[in-house]
């Protein structure tokens, strides 16, 4: 196996693993946040507006962790710096 194949293999496996592991935490966190917000709205329907706004902002915060993972796996698949480096080495 030459280095190109190795880099491609490791990148693809790591990208999948990054999404798989990295989305567990945010998924649990978002579920918990929505659960608590629903409970709060059920108890205090008058405060729905401020609860919803805070919920959205909080969800965005939690979701950004999953988005980081997604961006990293996108970089690994579509714009891999190691891959470009290996191609440049092989070409030059």
């Amino acid at each position, binding site marked *: 196996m030459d280095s190109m194949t190795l880099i491609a293999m490791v990148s693809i496996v790591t990208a999948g693993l990054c999404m798989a592991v990295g989305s567990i935490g945010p998924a649990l966190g978002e579920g918990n946040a929505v659960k608590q917000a629903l409970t709060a709205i059920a*108890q205090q329907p008058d405060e729905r507006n401020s609860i919803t706004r805070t919920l959205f902002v909080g969800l965005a915060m939690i979701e950004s962790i999953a988005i980081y993972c997604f*961006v990293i796996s996108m970089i690994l698949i579509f*714009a891999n710096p190691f891959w470009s480096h290996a191609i440049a080495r092989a070409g030059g």
Partner: protein
Amino acid sequence: MDILGLSKISPDQVILWQWHFVVIDITLLYTWLVMILLVGASWLVTRRLSSDIRVSRWQSLLEVLVSAMRSQIAEVSQEDPDRYLPFIGTLFLFIGLSNVLVIVPGYVAPTASLTTTAALSISVFIAVPLFGISRQGLLNYLKEYFQPTFIFFPFHVMGEFSRTLALAVRLFGNIMSGDKVVAILLAVTPLFFPMIMHALGLLIGLVQAYIFSVLAMVYIASATQSHEKKERKDQPEAEDVAQDTKHNPNA
């Protein structure tokens, strides 16, 4: 239609025109397009405003937008919204319009490029201390960095940088992922599922525009009013308690 290939994650890579170091890519082109649309439409509508009972439909659209933004800003900041409306409103309108226009074929949202979102979040990064200093003075603003003790200074500074990065990457990741999901689904199951994901992408685009501007407002509010809250805390909160029991039927 497919300007941005599947293997390119940023519209910066599609270059239209180049002269030495001056590069015009489609991110810039569509940013200018969105800017022209916003400025042109606002200019056309505000050219003949009327305070009559009968207003034109475009004027009422603008009124709904502006009053909604004002009420949201007032709710978050708990003070006069006109101070923040130009900055926060511009952020919201620009991001919102550039995300919604993806229904036009051949258009790539400029917010799907990390350069645009980084520029937007850097402008928030600069605006936070500006608003803070103009509100509570340089010394009081700097004092916030040393609360509660001086040990927390590096953490405050780190927080400023990391939330700027988070703001940029969140918007970029959401819009870019919507784009990519549609492109991948088009290759796998054409027509129906990409359409649904596209509709979801429109919703996500608006929610992200809302979140970006609300977060910017929250950051600015935390820089401007941390001092006042402390003063308010000294007084007994009798009215608040009374209001809470009134709002809550279970209490």
